[in-house]
């Protein structure tokens, strides 16, 4: 019983964590909290079910196609919903533009795909019950993503360029860094990570057009818990959220899970507004 709750909690938590990282990657390059993060997760499930389940493309090329398609959606998000409002960030117009684009994506999928949840194909031919792919695949995906991101940000030139943009885009541009191209690349990476959340978690989420808002909602919690821009914090926050949800659902009632989740979330924000792993932003004067 305990094993079932932990397996289930870690799996859902890993999905939330990946969406949280998607928020972070987009935010780092643009200072925009894009509400398309959850929709990228939804699209990962839908593209995966379409390419592999319906079109019968083998798993590996199907996975690459899915992630490629999500990267493309990430780039389009940057061009359509983010770039036009960057000059007036203080007016928070990105809330409207990214939300509108997210709704457009959702409605398009509802019309072209289905309004009913569709099955997600089995990606690995082994495992049953609690060693089912739906439990371990999202956790594995989250681990791979955090390791790759850590290596990229710490060991590669392009990763350091991302950090420079995130730290101070004006200074980075003054140093000759191609800010626009780096921002587009970071949105493509966010697309891949968001898509991977829905793809690896397809066994739990199914290919359903309405998953987006739920993922955007719960995916934001790890960001706030872990501190905006802190990917390791997002992973820990996401896994903690998943475990908390499943434990609360088992011990109290499924009905009160959302209430309990957001009660804890609000308390945490009151206690540590910068997140559990974030530091108050300092500014050199």
């Amino acid at each position: 019983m305990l094993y079932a709750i932990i397996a289930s909690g870690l799996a859902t938590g890993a999905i939330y964590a990946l969406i949280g990282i998607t928020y972070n990657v987009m935010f780092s390059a643009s200072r925009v909290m894009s509400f398309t993060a959850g929709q990228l997760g939804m699209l990962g499930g839908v593209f995966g079910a379409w390419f592999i389940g319906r079109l019968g493309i083998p798993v590996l090329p199907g996975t690459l196609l899915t992630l490629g398609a999500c990267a493309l959606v990430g780039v389009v998000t940057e061009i359509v919903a983010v770039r036009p409002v960057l000059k007036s960030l203080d007016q928070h117009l990105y809330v409207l533009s990214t939300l509108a684009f997210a709704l457009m994506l959702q409605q398009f999928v509802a019309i072209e795909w289905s309004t009913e949840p569709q099955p997600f194909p089995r990606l690995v031919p082994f495992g049953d019950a609690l060693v089912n792919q739906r439990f371990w695949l999202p956790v594995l995906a989250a681990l791979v993503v955090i390791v790759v991101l850590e290596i990229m940000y710490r060991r590669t030139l392009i990763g350091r360029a991302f950090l420079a943009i995130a730290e101070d885009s004006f200074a980075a541009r003054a140093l000759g860094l191609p800010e626009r191209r780096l921002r587009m690349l970071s949105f493509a990476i966010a697309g891949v990570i968001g898509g991977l959340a829905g793809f690896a978690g397809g066994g739990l989420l199914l290919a359903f057009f309405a998953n987006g808002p739920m993922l955007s909602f719960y995916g934001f919690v790890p960001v706030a818990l872990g501190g905006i821009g802190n990917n390791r914090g997002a992973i820990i926050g996401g896994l903690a959220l998943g475990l908390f949800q499943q434990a609360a659902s088992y011990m109290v009632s499924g009905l009160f899970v959302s209430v309990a989740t957001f009660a804890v979330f609000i308390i945490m924000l009151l206690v540590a507004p910068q997140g559990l792993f974030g530091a108050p932003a300092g500014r050199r004067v």
Partner: protein
Amino acid sequence: MPLKRRALLAASLGAAVPVVGRAAPEPIRVGWVTALTGASSAPGIGFDRGVHFAVDEINAAGGVHGRPFEVVTRDTQGDPTKAVNASVELISRQKVVAIWGPVNSGEALATTPLVARSRMPSIHPCVIDSLIDPKKYPNAFRLAPANVQWEAAVRHYCLDIVKAKKIAIVGDTTGYGTTATRDSVADFQKAGANVVYHDLIEATKTDVTSDVLRMQDSGAEVVVPWSVTTGLLARLLNVRGARGWNVPFVGHPALGSGEVKKLLEKPAYWEKVYLIGYRSCSYDANGKLPARTQAFVDKLRGKVELVDTSLWWISAAYDAMRLVVEAIEKTGSTEHEAIIGYWNTLKAYPGVYGNYTFTPQEHNGYPTDDVVMSVANSFRDGAYALAPGYT
């Protein structure tokens, strides 16, 4: 030869005179309000097949008192506002004699008070109990079971046939799920059953492991789910199957939906799942339909597709059309009061879907005893097999 203007005029007159002499009789129009497109259109499409089959049959037999019988269809796309607008238009502009539909409760909740104000004879198959109230809505009749009849059938199956002592009842957080779960818990308890677990689950919850664990820990011997959300139902069945928990699921007709089947990880997870069905549209132990239904299916063969819809939708719509025609033929009138008055006298009227009984005090016409449980994975040509335990 060039056609002269005078010759043309003469020819036109010649053609026109006989037409005036043989003026087509005014058709009798019945309104049909349903979702034929959109997310909730599957029942509407099924009912529509029955409507058109009945109308064609009636007109092929000479119509109603020599007048053609015409159905005026309005697609609501599942939107209550569109259903209201369609009903107003059918009553005020199309001058229909009766309205069949809507076929989903959300739309019917919006249209019923409005249609009642014009005393328009109305017949529908929606399950929400409050839609039928002969005092408030003396014009409204239901030819399918009310939710309370569904619950009674589920309760009877769980307590008297499965002989379960401990019951788990679960619903989704939609308006329907919440109401049905609350009523079902109260009715089971009133019947002396031990409801060991009841709860609501968010319809979009991605993993229901913890919920199934709680049901299992409660010692439930049967699970009664009240939800139309196919994703939630499939998730519950998948967790039940993965945990090897072998209790029956008994409940809402959505349990037998093809959408649930698609989402199951293994076909075996659909075993011991029983959904609400109807005796008239169920195969017996020998795989045969009741004689009256079989005769109807024979008439449908080659004309109406059955493989992708429910037989009860087709037969109920067929019966609705026959009930309108029967009222006009027997009373010789298309007046609202005459049709309503006639329906109020029906006693075990033999339709295909059921034997309907209406009185001025009771407008729920479907017999509760004909609501039965069906085997979810037995769907064939629009019908299911009777669940084990029925004779």
